[in-house]
């Protein structure tokens, strides 16, 4: 039953929208807005990890690039929400495009660690040398212009805007993954050497995917800074990379719905369970071990077969 949903993009979108609407009105809209933004981030991350087979341990860099691109544009240039969003996405894509040639050449362990190191460099640059523009440790508190009903101060509007954004990202990534291009990504994940023998320049495909993934993460970052109406260093902190990795693994890597399920499940745990768990990191560690050793397909990997 659930497997059918995955093969039908329209059904996927309807299901996603319905679940978040129910969830949103049953709990609280601002909270579910956070959930949906995180899901966008997980989808972007999973494009690299699940679909292309490269684990990045520094994807917070691109979330941060989006958040700071959006925040700095709104703070220093012009507080238009849409232009700021665009600035955030463009900055994320630009960072990915600049670092891509360096990162994409590597793979496996070196890929993961190089991303982590670059994330550390980014976090340092934002915190210290560029603090005049980024606000350093205090961050930037933001204010956005409103046009009629387009009012980002209103939590209901933010909820629907983020829901729309999530559906858009889900739709676009589904299209991408189901296209011949997506098949090629899957082939690169399985065996890159053979894809090269078929005459494809795998480097170009990996590079483009890296930029797309960075841009989606940056979009999530820009949405975060609009949603919170501030930007600070926690949005680029290398220590938070484990969250998105865990979410992707928990939901089921290599599936767009899996990413949404994982993002939602992780946010549910961290929002509701973490209140009762004093030893949150220990819990996270044991849960990660359980998923790595016993539940590799993730939640969605089992549910889709029902």
């Amino acid at each position, binding site marked *: 039953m659930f497997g059918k949903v995955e093969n039908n993009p329209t059904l996927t979108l309807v299901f996603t929208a319905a679940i978040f609407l129910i969830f949103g009105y049953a709990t609280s809209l601002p909270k579910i807005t956070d959930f949906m933004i995180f899901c966008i981030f997980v989808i972007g991350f999973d494009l690299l*990890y699940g679909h292309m087979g490269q*684990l990045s*341990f520094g994807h917070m860099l691109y979330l941060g690039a989006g958040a700071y691109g959006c925040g700095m544009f709104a703070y220093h240039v012009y507080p238009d929400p849409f232009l700021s969003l665009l600035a955030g996405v463009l900055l994320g894509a630009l960072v990915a495009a600049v670092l891509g040639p*360096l990162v994409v*050449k*590597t*793979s*496996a*362990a*070196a890929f*993961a*660690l*190089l991303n*982590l*190191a*670059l994330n*550390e*460099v980014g976090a*340092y*640059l934002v*915190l*210290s*040398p560029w603090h005049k523009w980024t606000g350093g440790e205090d961050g930037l508190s933001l204010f956005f212009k409103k046009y009629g009903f387009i009012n980002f101060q209103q939590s209901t509007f933010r909820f629907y805007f983020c829901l729309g954004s999530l559906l858009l990202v889900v739709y676009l990534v589904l299209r991408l993954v189901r296209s011949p291009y997506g098949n090629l990504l899957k082939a690169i994940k399985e065996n890159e050497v053979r894809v090269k023998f078929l005459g494809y320049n795998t480097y170009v495909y990996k590079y483009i995917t890296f930029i797309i993934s960075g841009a989606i993460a940056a979009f999530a970052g820009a949405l975060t800074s609009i949603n919170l109406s501030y930007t600070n260093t926690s949005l680029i902190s*290398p*220590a938070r990379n*484990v969250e998105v*990795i*865990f979410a992707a*693994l928990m939901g089921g890597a290599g599936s767009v719905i899996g990413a949404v399920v994982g993002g939602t499940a992780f946010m549910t745990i961290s929002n509701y369970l973490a209140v009762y768990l004093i*030893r*949150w*990191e*220990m819990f*996270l*560690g*044991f849960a*990660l*071990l359980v998923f*790595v*050793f016993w539940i*590799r397909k993730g939640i969605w990997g089992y549910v889709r077969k029902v």
Partner: protein
Amino acid sequence: MTSFIQSVLFGLTIGGILYIISIGLSLTFGAMGIVNFAHGLIYAVGAYAVYTVATILGAGFVVGVLAALAVSVPLSYVIERFVIRRLYGQSIDYAIIATYAILLIGADSLKWIYGASPLPIIDPIGKLWTFGSLQMPAYRVVIIGLSVLIFFGLSLFFKKTLVGKIVVAGLQDREAVRSLGIRVEKHFAIVFIIGSALAALGGVLYAPLSTLNPYMGFEILVLCFAVVIVGGMGNLRGTAIAAYSLGLVHSLSAAYIASSASDAMVYTVMAAVLIFRPIEA
């Protein structure tokens, strides 16, 4: 000039510590293809063990060092036996995630036991050597000497002993060694434990230069990964050269750019090295 020489000596100290910690990482990667984040936990446990024995119990630094080794060996055996051995030959991502999980659990346990606030350890030698206007804590000189000793000791170990030779051969071609009827994995496990004990020693040596905190493992680990990537994974001499060079980068950029810039500069150098010398890993 004096301050320059001082920075160079400080850089060699940091380089020596980075070298001592990185050997284990480099060998684990070269031999087993596993990126071991749990290495950072062993490092932190070593430092906390010496704090417990030397500062809380007041038994002296040398006893503390022995205690650190005594704790780290069984702990690393458990990690090797129950986590890492189950991940041989599988996708490297799972090993990264699983060992990171161990690091999280361990760091949280340390926070549980010792609290989150930074703890100081006093310099166990506490003497300053003075040459003209140059001042150098004797402890740092001891660290540099110790790291050089370890370098030569390990070189001998890998050239002269049977275990060392098997491991070097296994790094080259695991299947060929196994076809001679040698259980390579067992020898790798021995090397893993040696590497972990050295990580604990690194934690012990670094603690008096800095402070202890539960997340110290995360902080040093990324630097050590930079060392391993620059030096070549599984390459012992490369690891040593990379460790001392990056240690110098670290202390010189702290002295001449900004103290907070040092880590970022190390990663920048690493990225620059990668541009010119791509790695196949």
